[in-house]
């Protein structure tokens, strides 16, 4: 799946700044950690000195000195233990803290995003970004800092010693080091891209696995396991390849850096040799100088390591940012609190989705009026835009400004949470959470553990005609329903979702085909219950059934995104349009059956 920011190949500076902002709350602790790191390094450097002294003393036969030196080293070792432990804990913990904060921010933004985003980014991809990519960011913060401090210390120490010996030679020795900047540029960009590809490959893998599992019943029923395995193996191989490309890149970077360090040595042999010849330097000094220079090799290489951690972290961060920075389609800038009785009106509502850069119109100017406590049925052929319309009422999709009104108030001006509280909604395909039946019904409740909660849950279940059936489930209300409610039958799921929507007694209730999966008896019961419930609230019902529609005060028929008929059941039947054809067909069946019944009944 392509991510919104995939087009920007280079890491953005803004991203780096933002990342730094995440460190801000932990600056104090990080500084403390760094200080401890410095101390650790200093102690580390002190040990050889003390030991050297001790060995000299041993040579000189002053054993007391040796003993005291040994004790000093012991003490330093103990101190080191504490400092080193503490410093690592501080620095790495900050990495975990940043990861924690970023992940929390991520879920918050996921909750703000709309359908357009989720069409572009699949579940597996999001999961991968929230774990694997965030992990890379954390490494950047934790290990990254550790390495920077260690390297700076190592560089600083060695250079200081070299300067003390011979400033001139130091200058020569350091001559190749600016090359590191170019190398960092060169490899940095490539590391970033390769890392990104690798992370993408991993996400793809997660995606394939996630989808395969989500569709496990279809996979099994159609026995396409082999094809699925093949698809997975491909993604698996792609991940290996991406990973190896990264390995190759790092494999090249490493000797390049080594070359820089070694060039320094070469120059030192060269120039230092000359200086020795000119008797400006002793051979011993040259050897010592070289030893210090050798100490630079490790930090130079560590720099490469650092570079790769940094670039991976940035790549990871940029991928996480694609979620963090995704612009919510539905903004919650409104402040009005709805208090009215719940009249809804829709004024020339147009809506389209972007598909491959093209606007595909879904709703082409829909007008509707539902008076408070009134009822409206929305009918129409498959794909005519009913669900789209229904979702736009509580702003679950980006409702355009000035088109949809609740009690005369533009819904985009209403506080989002309040709007959704006032306009209840049950989606066409019921989605249940993997918890108990009770928790699912109580999902919209503010106090699911309150004293009257159980009662309200039961009455909502009653209204949705599911209460009796719940009692027959293995653990009654406590029955776990499984992910998406897989452990329930289709009709059970649908009615639990309906109960959930009815529970909060919103002023307006929008039900998207709430009876598609129930039998005739249950449907009749629900319809009666809705009639009762409808007395106190506005009902907007999407349905394919004339039986259900005819109970509503008015009916609209959608076709291809526009309303083609509107009126009461009687009016529409008389008008002789689509609705009347539908009604006739359903009526015909009814009559056919009834006459059959009558015929049978009239027979002896």
């Amino acid at each position: 799946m392509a991510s919104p920011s995939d087009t920007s190949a280079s890491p953005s500076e803004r991203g780096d700044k933002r990342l730094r902002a995440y460190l801000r709350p932990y600056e104090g602790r990080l500084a403390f950690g760094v200080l401890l790191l410095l101390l650790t390094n200093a102690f580390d450097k002190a040990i050889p000195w003390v030991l050297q002294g001790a060995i000299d003393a041993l040579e000189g036969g002053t054993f007391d000195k040796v003993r005291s030196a040994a004790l000093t080293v012991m003490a330093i070792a103990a101190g080191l233990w504490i400092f080193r432990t503490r410093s690592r804990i501080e620095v790495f913990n900050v990495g975990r803290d940043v990861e924690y904060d970023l992940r929390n921010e991520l879920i918050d933004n996921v909750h703000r995003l709309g359908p357009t985003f989720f069409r572009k980014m699949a579940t597996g991809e999001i999961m991968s970004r929230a774990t694997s990519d965030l992990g890379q960011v954390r490494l950047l913060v934790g290990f990254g800092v550790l390495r920077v401090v260690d390297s700076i210390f190592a560089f600083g120490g060695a250079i200081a010693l070299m300067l003390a010996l011979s400033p001139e030679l130091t200058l020569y020795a350091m001559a190749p080091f600016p090359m590191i900047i170019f190398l960092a540029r060169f490899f940095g960009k490539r590391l970033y891209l390769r890392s990104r590809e690798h992370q993408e490959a991993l996400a793809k893998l997660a995606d394939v696995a996630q989808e395969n599992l989500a569709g496990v019943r279809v996979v099994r029923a159609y026995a396409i396991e082999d094809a699925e395995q093949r698809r997975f193996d491909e993604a698996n191989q792609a991940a290996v390849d991406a990973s190896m490309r990264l390995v190759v890149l790092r494999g090249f970077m490493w000797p390049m850096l080594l070359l820089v360090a070694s060039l320094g040595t070469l120059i030192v042999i060269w120039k230092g040799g000359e200086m020795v010849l000119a008797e400006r330097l002793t051979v011993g000094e040259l050897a010592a100088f070289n030893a210090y220079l050798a100490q630079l090799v490790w930090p130079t290489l560590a720099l490469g390591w650092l570079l790769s951690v940094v670039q991976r972290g940035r790549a990871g961060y940029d991928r996480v940012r694609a979620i963090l920075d995704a612009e919510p389609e539905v903004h919650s800038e409104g402040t009005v609190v709805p208090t009215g009785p719940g009249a809804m009106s829709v004024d020339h509502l147009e809506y389209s989705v972007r598909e491959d850069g093209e606007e595909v119109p879904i709703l082409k100017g829909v007008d509707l009026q539902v008076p408070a406590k009134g009822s409206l049925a929305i009918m129409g052929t498959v794909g005519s835009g009913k669900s789209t319309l229904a979702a736009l009422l509580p702003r679950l999709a980006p409702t355009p400004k000035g088109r949809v009104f609740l009690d005369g108030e533009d819904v985009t001006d209403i506080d989002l949470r309040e709007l959704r509280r006032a306009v209840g909604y049950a989606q066409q395909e019921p989605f249940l959470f993997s918890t108990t039946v009770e928790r699912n019904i109580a999902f919209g409740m503010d106090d699911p553990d309150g004293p009257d909660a159980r009662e309200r849950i039961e009455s909502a279940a009653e209204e949705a005609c599911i209460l009796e059936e719940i009692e027959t489930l293995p653990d009654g209300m406590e029955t776990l329903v499984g992910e998406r409610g897989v452990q329930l039958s289709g009709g059970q799921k649908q009615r639990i979702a309906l109960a959930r929507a009815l529970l909060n007694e919103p002023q307006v209730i929008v039900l998207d085909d709430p009876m598609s999966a129930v039998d005739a008896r249950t449907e009749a019961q629900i319809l009666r219950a809705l009639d009762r419930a409808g007395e106190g609230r506005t009902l907007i019902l999407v349905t394919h059934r004339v039986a259900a529609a005819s109970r509503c005060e008015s009916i609209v028929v959608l076709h291809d995104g526009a309303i083609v008929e509107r009126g009461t059941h009687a009016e529409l039947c008389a008008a002789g349009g689509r609705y009347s054809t539908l009604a006739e067909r359903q009526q015909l069946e009814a009559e056919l059956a009834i006459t059959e019944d009558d015929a049978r009944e009239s027979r002896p």
Partner: protein
Amino acid sequence: MSDSKATPETKRAESRARLLTSAQAEQAERHYDLALLKRLLPYAKPHKWLFIAAMILMPLSSLMGLVQPYLLKRGIDSVVVEKSEGALMQVVYLFAGALAAEFVVRFAQTYLMQLAGQKCTADLRGDVMGKIQRLRVGYFDRTPVGRVVTRVTNDIDSLAELFASGAVTAITDLITLVGIVVAMLLLDWQLSLVAFTALPPLALLVNLFRKRARSAFRDIRTRVAQLNAYLAEQVNGVRVVQAFGREKECADEYKDINAAYRDANYRSIRYDALLYSVVQSISVACVALVLYFAAVRAGWVSAGAEGALYVGTVVAFYDYIERFFVPIRDLATKYTIIQSSLASAERVFQLLDTDEDDAPHRPGDRPVVEEEAAVAFEDVTFAYRDGHPVLHEVSIAVRPGEHVALVGATGSGKTTLTSLLLRLYELEEGSLRVDGKDVRDWDAKALRRSFAVVPQDVFLFSGTLRANLALGELAPDDDRLWEALERTGAADLVRKRGGLDGRVDERGQNFSAGERQLLAFARALYRDVDRIILDEATANVDSETEHRLQLAAREALEGRTAIVVAHRLSTIREADRIIVMHQGRVAEEGTHEELLAAGGIYARLHKLQTATS
């Protein structure tokens, strides 16, 4: 949601943590670690040459590193002693050559090692996926998808660290260590023994950390799985969360898991830091100890200048102790990675060991029955959860070519019957035969391929329309695809969406519910097999479309055996026989007319549905 926290796995991990406190258990644990590593071995085996080559190159690359200082010395000599430019240049060339050689060796070494590691983990990953394909559907009823995905992704990634970090090379560290120990003993056994006194406390600490660290890492694995499962659910149900304004509450639950994950990580960091620094400090302390002892010993031997005699040994020892601790330090670093990887390995192997095979081979004495039935249920009693049967002694026989409709209240077991027919669940009581052969004797794939199904919950995969309609086929027949689409009336829709190459988003979210159902119908028609199952295949379509579908179905079902589940009785009027299910039992059976005449459940249902129209 919150209930997912008390997963069987956590419980198991907890109970095992509790159990394993005695020394005996510790022993068991160590064996268990070895057992885990041993189980990884088969994955390394096919790539053993890569590993061996990498291992051989490793000391070689260190050797290359040693050549350079030697050349350096020669360089200095040539300048100082021979004072010759030519010799110097020669050294410079040699130096460059050594550099190039080191590059080649190092590159080859890392490349081979990483390649071998990648291949191992990819194989393991493939195996886990393969296992998932063979687990029974019931397993996934209970296990959140996100958690299983974590096994395939994060857990294996973490396991891969074992290879990527080179922790597998710990063995070479051990070899180095042994070599140094021998050298030290030869040099001065007394001082060696003094130096080695540092080891027992080290071992003790390492052991202590190991246990703690492992439990932290186990915790981490569990939490990652929870994070993934929870996030996946939130993403899938985001519209519900938004519609009910539960963003904050849901985010809080997620943040709790996130905090638990962070805390588990804090713990692992603490143990890792402690272990790492303790090794560093002990190595320093050890040198001091040797010095101290050397001084004391020198004091014993003579009170004077003879201490100097020992200086050489001490200096040499200093060097050895340094070297002695290098592999120990390396081991300590790798140790953490190994612990973390083993915690992941546990998870992964746990999945691989799950004994819940889909459609297992069940040998039994079940003769093939010569019968006039394509499908025969005989006294089938079935329970998803023990003690709660949802089907009771169901007996249904469907003749070849017959169209049977299943109707009945919701939750009466209609979908369950179709699942059993496909052997998605294992039959425990009674028997179920397809073509006279018990389903338990069928090859599960062959059995399933002999049916075309439109399931109640339609599922579309992301990808193209073509891939969705011709599920699993490598070279679909476009003509037949179009034919199936024309029949279901979805052809126009597909044309509008860019033809068979048109894109389908995750779960088909860019299609309306009814459109998805039409596509699923077309998918079943394309299958073109003798037996077809339609489970509420028209629940989400309008009557006009339904009517069209019925005509299509009539044609398509001609001569085929069909089992049609429907709530809308209008859809099944033409069935040869209607079976009415009631609370898991067959309540009535007969044709539409017969059932109406009987005046039972069906007649009442029918009256209800028609009366309301």
